[in-house]
């Protein structure tokens, strides 16, 4: 049985001031197996973030439904952890308190929380920064904390919405290795949205390519590169072949988006 099932999910936004309604997402179907790492790749405005937010329960689909372990998603919940592109650490809580937030909301005793928090601080390499405020951290460290915060809750699926989009190239590469390393060791079902082709291939066991507005799923590419993956993989011939293929796919879509913008 699939871990996550997306069945005919679409999203239409009401027109502004009596204008035409905007179709952000055409009906999409997707089945995600347990412990799969899926990246959703597409140009800006293809509805990939909308799809992820519907899975998270932060937005309601116009049609269709999302099933997690056979249960329909109606609202956000701790079984679907999310990491956002913007920095969403709670600024009034320290790194450790941020990571403990979900456990605290669940009513877990402080003693029990401390052990779990310590292990996740360790996992994302933030030892020594437990008592720092988010403002004192670099962007990469903030996103590492956000990942630890989502994982500490032990969600059924981890959703990431361009989590490294605001980071510089070097930090981004390190963050990719860190997240992939965690996934290789701990196994988790992951849905990862990005517009970066290299990132999509490097992280994924499957890349879902989305088309330009109105967004729909265009292709579904299995990535059979071996694990554990090392950053040198990005310069291997197999990687280059996949990159060339996806670049072509995405280029067509990006050009279509640009043309749509030119006419509208």
């Amino acid at each position: 049985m699939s871990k996550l099932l997306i069945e005919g999910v679409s999203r239409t936004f009401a027109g502004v001031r009596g204008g035409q309604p905007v179709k952000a997402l055409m009906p999409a179907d997707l089945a995600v197996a347990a412990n799969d790492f899926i990246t959703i790749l597409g140009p800006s405005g293809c509805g990939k973030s909308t799809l992820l937010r519907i899975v998270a329960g932060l937005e309601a689909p116009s049609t269709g439904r999302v099933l997690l372990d056979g249960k329909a998603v109606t609202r956000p919940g701790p079984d679907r952890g999310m990491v956002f592109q913007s920095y969403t650490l709670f600024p009034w809580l320290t790194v450790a308190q941020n990571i403990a937030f979900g456990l605290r909301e669940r009513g877990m005793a402080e003693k029990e929380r401390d052990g779990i928090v310590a292990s996740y601080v360790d996992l994302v390499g933030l030892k020594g920064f437990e008592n720092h405020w988010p403002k004192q951290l670099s962007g990469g460290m903030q996103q590492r904390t956000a990942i630890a915060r989502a994982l500490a809750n032990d969600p059924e699926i981890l959703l990431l919405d361009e989590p490294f989009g605001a980071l510089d190239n070097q930090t981004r590469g390190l963050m990719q290795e860190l997240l992939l390393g965690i996934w290789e060791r701990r196994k988790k079902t992951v849905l990862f949205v990005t517009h970066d082709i290299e990132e999509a291939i490097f992280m994924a066991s499957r890349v879902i390519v989305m088309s330009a507005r109105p967004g729909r799923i265009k292709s579904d590419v299995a990535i059979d590169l071996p694990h554990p993956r090392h950053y040198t993989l990005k310069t291997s011939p197999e990687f280059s072949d996949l990159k060339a293929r996806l670049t072509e796919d995405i280029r067509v879509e990006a050009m279509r988006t640009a043309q749509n913008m030119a006419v509208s």
Partner: protein
Amino acid sequence: MRPLHPVSPGIRTVLGISFFVLFVAFWAWITLGGHVNRIFLADPLSMLRDGWRLLVEDRFWLDILITIWRVFGGFLLASVVAVPIGIAMGAWKPVEAFLEPFVSFARYLPASAFIPLLILWAGIGELEKLLVIFVGSVFQIILIVAVKVGSTRRDLVEAAYTLGSTNNGIVKRVIMPANAPEIAETLRLVLGWAWTYVIVAELIGSSSGIGYMIINSQSRLATGQIIFGIIVIGLIGLLSDFAFKAFNRWLFPWSLA
């Protein structure tokens, strides 16, 4: 001068102090130099002399204490009522729809115009003074707090939901801590206005306080005392503002780190 170009801290201090010096020098020049009649404006030296006599002989410090107590009493009363209402309005839109039109209207009712009514209702005792400050502050605080709370970062709220927060958890553990520093800043601002209301309250139907001393001095043309009273209000306002600022900084280290 280059627009928006910063000034060094040393020059900033010198410039800030030099205006005070110029101001007092101008004041001394027009009064001591005989350019205005002493009846209308006392010179700086006799102002200081009058102030010293007020403090030592007329026990003016008691008036100062009673005014401070009124300001903080009325202000605390207003805060205790207004902050929860403001948070409720910002967080729950039906509450906002219910109260916002009335509060917006009530905010423009001048507190000073209520003084005759409040005297009828509460007499000329302490309660009336507190109520003037209360009426002047409470609607302002409600509205500003409601607006701040209403503009809570949505991504933080969404993040909390994905971590399992309930609706009540969002209000208690996201909306309230996220806005606490701004609410404290709002209270600091409104405390400044409370100083204006208290003096107005003391000018009418009062027998103690800084405002009473000022109106009393007017009938005796003691302009030195009036100016001394005004300067005392300014100094206390400045001090309480500094203290409030320091307190906020101590309370919310995360918002400035």
